[in-house]
């Protein structure tokens, strides 16, 4: 029923999108900020990667995309920390602006085709055989996941975690929250853009709409990962984000197998996220009733 091609593509996409899940782990879970820049910076990563790859530098395309994403994250952070724009709105503002920026990067065209372009994957095609796509994305995601976990144990990383974990504590300590939020969102959006950059080369095209709904897809992956992994250590959470992304892609593959129209997938993702985030509240509301107590008012 499910061919090996489907399994491979689910794994490949899972590892590529895992970078978004890791990015949201940093912004949403660690910093406690729902970063709406995600959609825009994903597309930005696609666009930068495609343009640089077309110019003949598929490897350089990846750090270039990361830098662009980091810049986008910093804009959101500055809006938030310097101009006191509420965090969600700050992300939406950047995201809206990025639409134009992304079109501009692609030369005011809504897509860039890379059919004959040398990409990361055409470079590995000869040496790696049938896993020429899977191995590079696996290695890339694994390296970045490890780097992220190590980073979060450094002085700067611990400061970023404390910023999200206990604002009261941070206010009384020597942590400049403006700085930690800026670094956090910068790193997070660099990861998101890298995901977009790899995806563009993977599917040999960039499109202005590729990032639509990415924040929800990333959150869904992250939350699936959290239910899979026991609560605990940092590296387990990072592993959970990667696993969740892979599982999400398998769910999508399965849904497509069941002839669900692909237009439905975003609704499914939205429901997964809404239910998963709302679960604690739902449980709380049910508890008094379950105990047989009468709920006040």
């Amino acid at each position: 029923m499910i061919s090996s091609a489907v399994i491979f593509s689910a794994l490949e996409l899972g590892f590529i999108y895992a970078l978004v899940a890791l990015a949201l782990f940093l912004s949403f879970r660690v910093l406690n900020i729902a970063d709406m820049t995600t959609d825009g910076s994903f597309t930005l990563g696609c666009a930068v990667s495609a343009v640089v790859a077309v110019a003949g530098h598929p490897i350089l395309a990846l750090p270039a995309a990361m830098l662009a994403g980091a810049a986008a994250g910093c804009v959101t952070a500055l809006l938030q920390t310097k101009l006191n724009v509420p965090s969600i709105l700050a992300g939406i503002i950047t995201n809206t602006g990025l639409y134009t920026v992304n079109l501009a990067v692609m030369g005011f065209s809504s897509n860039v085709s890379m059919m004959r372009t040398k990409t990361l994957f055409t470079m590995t095609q000869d040496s790696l055989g049938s896993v020429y796509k899977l191995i590079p994305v696996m290695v890339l995601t694994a390296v970045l996941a490890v780097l992220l976990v190590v980073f979060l144990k450094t002085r700067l990383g611990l400061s970023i975690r404390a910023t999200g974990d206990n604002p009261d504590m941070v206010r009384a300590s020597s942590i400049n929250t403006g700085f930690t939020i800026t670094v956090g969102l910068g790193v997070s959006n660099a990861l998101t853009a890298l995901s977009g950059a790899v995806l563009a080369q993977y599917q040999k095209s960039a499109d202005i709409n590729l990032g639509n709904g990415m924040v929800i897809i990333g959150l869904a992956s992250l939350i699936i990962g959290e239910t899979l992994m026991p609560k605990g250590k940092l590296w387990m959470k990072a592993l959970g984000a990667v696993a969740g992304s892979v599982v999400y892609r398998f769910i999508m593959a399965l849904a497509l197998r069941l002839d669900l129209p692909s237009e439905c997938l975003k609704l499914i993702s939205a429901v997964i996220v809404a239910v998963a985030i709302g679960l604690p509240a739902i449980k709380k509301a049910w508890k008094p009733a379950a105990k047989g107590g009468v709920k006040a008012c």
Partner: protein
Amino acid sequence: MLKLQNVSKTFNPGTVNEKKALEGIDLQLAPGDFVTILGSNGAGKSTLFGAIAGSFVVDTGTISLDGKNITNLPDYKRSVYIGRLFQDPLKGTAPGMTIEENLALAYLRASKKRSPFSMVTAADRRDFRERLAMLELGLEDRMDHPVGLLSGGQRQALTLLMAILVTPKLLLLDEHTAALDPATAEKVLSLTKKIVAENHITCLMITHNIPSALSLGNRTIMMNSGKIVLELQGEERANMTTERLLKIFHEQSISNDRILFSAE
């Protein structure tokens, strides 16, 4: 060491809610001074700490620490040198991070020379363990537990340890035992005494408990309506009793219906 000259702060100036929180405060601390601060609610004790720690900009006056003018230094830059503990034990530690990570954060932040990407070493970790063992709360065996699982007293003791992990120039204790049960409060207070004495830390402590205000440290000041109204040290302080101090408060009609001193 710490020097405050003519420090004043008015909140909401020019409105009906205008509140003169600090009025011409002069205070000078010598290295190693341990000053206890008494005063009813709204006397300006916590505002004084806010001014020293940089939570807001003062209207007039200068604040200097170790000869360096810090009046306009933002709070996060001051707190490299100034440790601060609050009444609420939840305010000083990050609940989602482990005991070790909380200590690592305090340690790495206070040692300013290190790079932003520095991490704690195995030797640091052993040091954390030894220091935790000194608290005698068994925390040394729970270093990888999230702090959110600890009790209020344990968290406050940990906060204290974090504040002095790298000896600060100044330690501000804002009723840091008031929210704890009596036995735990006693424990944290004796820990405070021990740690401050062993490390020769210059310290200011707000308390509502007159006996401990008189027994701890070497100086006591008393605040009312944003001013320092009484200073005790040396022999005068040694001869002071709770009853006499309470009498002085009443004579100065300092205490009112909001009085919250405990004479136990």
